[in-house]
């Protein structure tokens, strides 16, 4: 059980929206997933969940990730409500 700064009781899980694009969306057969994760989860935890899903073995072990449209490290801690995008190698231009 975690308590927030103001002392409110936080729920045991929080939700993040995972976005998948291009080859990664093909691999997992979907482009958006709502994930319930434990408070204090990191980007690394989210990736572990994704890699364990059907088709997740077709993702690279350490893909690029953006949290709320900004590139983020695997150690980034999530607060809940974030948009977590898994970014295949970019190929614009």
């Amino acid at each position, binding site marked *: 059980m975690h308590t927030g700064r103001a002392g409110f009781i936080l729920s045991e899980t929080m939700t993040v929206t995972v*976005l998948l*694009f*291009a*080859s*990664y969306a*093909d*691999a997992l057969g979907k482009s958006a997933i709502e994930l319930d994760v434990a408070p204090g989860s990191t980007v690394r935890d989210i990736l572990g969940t994704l890699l364990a899903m059907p088709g997740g073995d*077709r*993702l*690279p*072990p*350490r*893909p*690029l990730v*953006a949290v709320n*449209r*900004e*590139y*983020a*490290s*695997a150690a980034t801690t999530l607060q809940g409500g974030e948009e977590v*995008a898994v*970014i*295949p*190698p*970019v*190929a*614009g*231009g």
Partner: protein
Amino acid sequence: MRVALVDCPIDVSSLISEVSDDSCGAASVFLGCVRNVNDGRAVTGIEYSAYRSMAEREMNAIVREAAERFGVSRLIIEHRLGALGLGDVSVAIVAAHPHRAPALDAMRFAIEQLKRRVPIWKLELYVDGTREWVGSGIRNRESGVEAPDVVATRIQ
């Protein structure tokens, strides 16, 4: 200073007119186009897709950085999405400045950064009917997917 993701053909002449005014002695333009061969395979077209909100955010960051580095505020980046045919312009970068060096430097900076950072992908369609995500992590899984330099730097 303006960026856009567009779904219709890019009009280069109107971008040049838009970016320049009478104070500009120089304008520079980069155009990316769909070419008929990639990696030795005959291409018939490319479908571009993007993480639109983040792509716009990164493109805006690039034009702001170009303004800081080169003093070039007259800079437009337009990238087209959707199905493009051979020869179609996929991206246009136009820069204008009183002098040529900043116009050229800012333009080149913008295209190099776009190639590294902006979340846009291309699905190449080949003459033999197959299709493939260009540079996709999946195709390259065995050898490991390398992040673009600038991105890797940010993440570490």
